[in-house]
């Protein structure tokens, strides 16, 4: 391999891995936004997944795949527990409940012995490789593509557009919202497990309110019309801070500014409903001109 490629990889491989993880987190919040709910708890779910997977590989020597799966299942179960009473109500209730939940998870991690308290968990074996990330991301993208033209996908979209009309059409709206929330939690948990096994280290601070806002920004910036939106948004918002490192703590203000600007002036995000039509038109013109 050429010299410059190897050194590029040495410097930026973590960034690459992080782009994948952030993409998964964007997808995890996307599925709840797709049915009109706002979850601010996906960073906490990621944390639960990270700690679970890490503890399973460290203390029980489970094979990586199994750790990841359990790391996804536990947050999903928690999501079911929180979701069932909360999702009977309008989307703002889930936002508030998950905000509170995020704080609680942080406190629990801080105080449990097994999680290492405020020092976190150290020495997590390096297990994640690029091909793991490719496979998981591939599965997720396939899942979301299949979702679009399926019964489940249409139901989520109906709930998002008009929940009352959807209920009157015989849709068990709470049931589906809870499922979407739990699936999102599963995805976030798996992302957490993958993340823990290349950063070697997890601490309670990484999974609080700020990361939850990051994840929300991925989706809002990218657009919530299709699942490609959060993928675009997360990629931009992972690379951009790297280039803006010199801003220091003010870097976080960037997220806030982006959220505000997008909500106010570009409410459908970058990948919105016209994007696909525009892209199609662009290709048709190119073909005609060729």
């Amino acid at each position, binding site marked *: 391999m050429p010299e410059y490629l190897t050194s590029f990889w040495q410097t930026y491989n973590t960034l690459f891995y992080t782009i994948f993880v952030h993409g998964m987190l964007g997808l995890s919040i996307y599925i709840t936004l797709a049915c*009109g709910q*706002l979850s601010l708890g996906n960073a906490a779910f990621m944390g639960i997944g990270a700690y679970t997977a890490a503890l399973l590989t460290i203390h029980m020597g489970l094979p990586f795949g199994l750790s990841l799966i359990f790391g996804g299942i536990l947050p999903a179960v928690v999501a079911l527990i*929180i979701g069932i*009473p*909360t999702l*009977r*109500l*309008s*989307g*703002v*209730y889930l*936002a*508030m*409940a998950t*905000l*509170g*939940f995020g*704080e*609680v998870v942080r*406190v*629990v991690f801080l*105080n449990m012995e097994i999680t290492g308290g405020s020092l976190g968990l150290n020495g997590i074996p390096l297990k994640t490789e690029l091909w793991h990330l490719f496979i998981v991301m591939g599965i997720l993208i396939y899942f979301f593509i299949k979702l679009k033209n399926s019964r489940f996908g249409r139901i989520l979209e109906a709930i998002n557009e008009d929940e*009352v009309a959807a*209920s*009157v059409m015989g849709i068990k709206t709470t049931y589906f919202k809870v499922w979407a929330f739990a699936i999102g939690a599963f995805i976030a948990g798996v992302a957490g497990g993958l993340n823990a096994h290349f950063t070697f280290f997890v601490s309670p601070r990484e999974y*609080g*309110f*700020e990361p939850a*806002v990051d994840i*929300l920004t991925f989706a*809002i910036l990218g657009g919530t019309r299709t699942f490609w939106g959060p993928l675009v948004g997360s990629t931009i918002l992972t690379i951009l801070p790297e280039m803006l490192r010199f801003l*220091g*703590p*003010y*870097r*976080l*203000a960037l*997220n*806030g*500014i*982006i*959220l*505000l600007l997008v*909500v*106010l002036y570009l*409410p459908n995000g970058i990948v919105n409903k016209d994007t696909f039509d525009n892209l199609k038109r662009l290709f048709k013109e190119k073909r005609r001109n060729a």
Partner: protein
Amino acid sequence: MFFQQIANALALGSVYSLFAIGFTLIFGVLEVITLAHGAVFMIGAFAGLIAVTKFNFSIIPTILISMLASGLAGFIIDLVAVKPLRARKFHHLAPMIATIGSATIIISIYQGIFGAEVYRFPFDFVPSDSYEFYGIQLTLLQLMIIGTSFLLMVIMILLLNKTKWGKAVRAVAESSKTAALLGIPVEKVYQFTMVISSAFGGAAGVLTGLNFNAIHTFMGGPILLRGIAVIILGGMGDIRGAMFGGLILGFSEVLSVAYISSDFRDAVSFGLLFFILLIKPSGIFGKVMERKG
């Protein structure tokens, strides 16, 4: 021992009520859940800190300055983030997300200026005298906090019930369309509500800063969580609910710390929130919201 805890519970709970009143009022009038209320709380705390450490103000001017600073912050947040969304028809989550953005910007700026360290008031700022009532020891600080909180809450109630502005606020909370038809300047009422509610949030901030003698840029998060728990517990948009809910939360936290464990104090509010969502999501004073066809 139990009775002694009452003092702590009152001090804690009355500040929670103060914070929650502003929070719930903004919801009731503007129909927005402002997740920037925690940031406003923090602004009030820092304003108070600066008033004391840099300008040597005494306690009452300090509290007033905190309220002024946070009231101004609330006005700006409304102007920049919430007001533009009023004119157009947006997704129901948009205003909430706009307040999240505002909060993030504010906290980041404060982090840049003040860093992450914990600041304290000068040692003797509040003399450490204590008094006894019916066998309960109350420090001067606790008396001040309880007194100020209750005073402000009484002012709020009088404001809402006895003044012209208060009537306008209640009318807009009931129905902004009808209020507009009656000639009430709805936009001014919105701004007024934001300012007053944020001022109360800032007062809660400086009082909390004094109570725990700790001020830092991330103090907005935990209080926001408690505010959310209180307004859902008390009923969203309901002032009485905010007051009672705050006191209930204060007592619950203090009792759980005293008799169970102090590690999980932050979890108490979430536990209460979850419990209420299970049993009566509309809260103690809330009416069940029915879906319309």
